């Protein structure tokens, strides 16, 4: 039993400290997105993101504002990105694989009032790489 507990503890420590894919989010091209507030509202920058069909990407979202923000697109017909909260000053990573066909999805902060204040970006899947 002690051996089993030791093995579990070692496994957990190895997973946490080795940067194993079980504990981190990565893969594909990294796309940096900045979130925050300004005098005329709230924002995600860039306001439009384009990716190729079937591409695997990792969004790196940096909250440079002074309050919590979310990054999500999970309702019916959207991109299927589960919500994640980004505390002020923190960075979060979200991996996503684009569908094989052209599409446009809204990605937004769903905290009360934030999306209405402008916190939304368009995630476009564009087949022709020249247009991207």
């Amino acid at each position, binding site marked *: 039993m002690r051996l089993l507990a030791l093995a579990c503890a070692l496994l957990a420590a190895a997973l946490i400290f080795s940067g194993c894919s*079980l504990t981190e989010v990565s893969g594909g091209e990294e796309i940096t997105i900045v979130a925050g507030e300004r005098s005329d509202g709230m924002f995600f920058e860039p306001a439009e993101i384009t990716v190729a069909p079937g591409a695997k990407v990792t969004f790196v979202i940096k909250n440079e504002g002074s309050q919590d923000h979310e990054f999500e697109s999970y309702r019916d017909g959207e991109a299927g990105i589960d*919500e*994640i909260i980004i505390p002020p000053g*923190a*960075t*979060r990573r*979200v991996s996503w694989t684009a569908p094989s066909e052209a599409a446009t999805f809204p990605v937004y902060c*769903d*905290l009360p009032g934030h999306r209405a204040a402008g916190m939304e970006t368009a995630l476009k899947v564009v087949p022709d790489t020249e247009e991207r």
Partner: protein
Amino acid sequence: MSSSFIITLREGLEAGLIVAIILAYLKSSGQRSHFRTVLISAVVAVAVSLSVGAAIFAIAGEFAGRSAEAFEGAAMLIAVGVLSWMVVWMKRQSAGIKKTLETDIAQAIGVGSAFALALIPFTAILREGLETAVFLFAATRTSTPLESTIGASAGLLGAVALTWGIYSGGYRINLRVFFNVTGVLLVVLAAGLLVNGLKDLHEAGVVSNLGPHAWDSYDALADNSQLGKFLSTILGYDSSPYIGLVIAHVTYLALALGFFAFGRAPSLRPAAAASHQPGAEAVPEPEGS
């Protein structure tokens, strides 16, 4: 998936043991003719439970955005309440459930009322079924429908197999250990649900302030990584939890596990000593609800 499995395994076994207790009593008292009534009643109770579960999922589907988060958050808190009642209050009350069931059955048969007899397993199983429906709905909010379906189905199959094994006398398990272990697991699951429910209500704007973030462990274990998602579902792991959530989580765990550990334990009589009748020997009393 794992939470759905634990829920249906435990609740399914509890419901199964109730049926087994009733059938064993009828068998030992020479009342086999009432088997049909009991089994039909059990099937109807399961069907009603499934209908209620489907209705909950259907109603949830009508909501979108913040109202959906508010509904799901409320459902999770209701599930936490139901579960807490189950593992704490019922732990104290269920010691005499076998005797109570047998007394009720004897009275129903005594007055010759098939309806009264049918009502006994129906209400007992319906209670288990409704608990399962609420708790399963709440648990599936943090996992995919496929994972939940696989987990719940496996748990139910396991419960049916265990019940049949116990009733037929071919398989014996230490029910006290089984219900204690699954009871602790359910308390841990409920604490996770409490956190996820409060988080949903906070995001819906129902709970306005949970305080600042207590810490940020995202770089060590991202809550949207594979392991992070698993721990989030099971334990309510959050890499940057609000202080209010941490306090709620720790307080709930301390109270629920404290009651669970120090509450009066039911007396599970050894199966062989419970009765001289062969049918009753295989069915010890269930614990919990």
